[in-house]
């Protein structure tokens, strides 16, 4: 398991290669990268700053990865989340899941993103032409996370 919070940029190809290196039983890697967009809720966004809760963040992400490993048959998981000031186009978060079969990798990767959005202590502040604003939690993220509560395994 590879869980990191960092200011530096990450590279998807490098992370996925590290995840599966030397594991010839890996048949599937599903991955996700979230990027800073130049528009949000109808306003231009010129930059954003990500704040987090050092200590709790890492614990929360490990908890999510453990939950995914209980729920699906996984070989390994990587989660990398950036903090600090980011510009539109910058990658923010990476989740990659290696498994034998693709169904497990896809489900666990989407689960981890949905859970991270509602349970990992990160906060975004956007810079717009009319000033700074804290991003509000989305109802759609809560709905996406709650899907997994009722869903049967797999």
């Amino acid at each position: 398991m590879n869980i990191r919070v960092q200011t530096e940029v990450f590279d998807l190809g490098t992370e996925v290669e590290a995840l599966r290196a030397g594991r010839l039983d890996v048949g599937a890697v599903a991955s996700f990268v979230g990027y800073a967009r130049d528009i949000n809720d109808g306003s231009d966004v010129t930059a954003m700053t990500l704040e987090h809760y050092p200590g709790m963040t890492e614990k929360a992400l490990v908890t999510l990865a453990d939950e995914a490993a209980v729920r699906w048959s996984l070989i390994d998981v990587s989660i990398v989340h950036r903090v600090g000031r980011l510009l539109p186009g910058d990658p923010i978060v990476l989740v990659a899941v290696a498994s034998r079969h693709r169904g497990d990798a896809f489900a666990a990767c989407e689960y981890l993103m949905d859970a991270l959005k509602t349970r990992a202590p990160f906060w975004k502040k956007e810079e717009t032409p009319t000033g700074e604003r804290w991003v509000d939690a989305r109802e759609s993220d809560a709905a996406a996370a709650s899907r997994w509560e009722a869903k049967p395994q797999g």
Partner: protein
Amino acid sequence: MRLRILYFARMRERFGVGEESLAFDGATVADLLEVLRARGGVWAEELAPGRSFRVALNQHLVTPDVPLTDAAEVAIFPPVTGG
């Protein structure tokens, strides 16, 4: 008991403080929130019942009925928006 209290994001900014040490003689998270609301102003406003915020005790999310212990780290913050 003595608590270490952390504030993040919008709450850190509105309260004008990121961390404080507080002597506390209540029992639960809900009691602590009452003490903080009693400061009035932005404290009463941001922590008003019905406002959306989260509380973590020793770095785990908790509900208001959870009891606090001496030297606990309590964090109060808005709903998370990472990813």
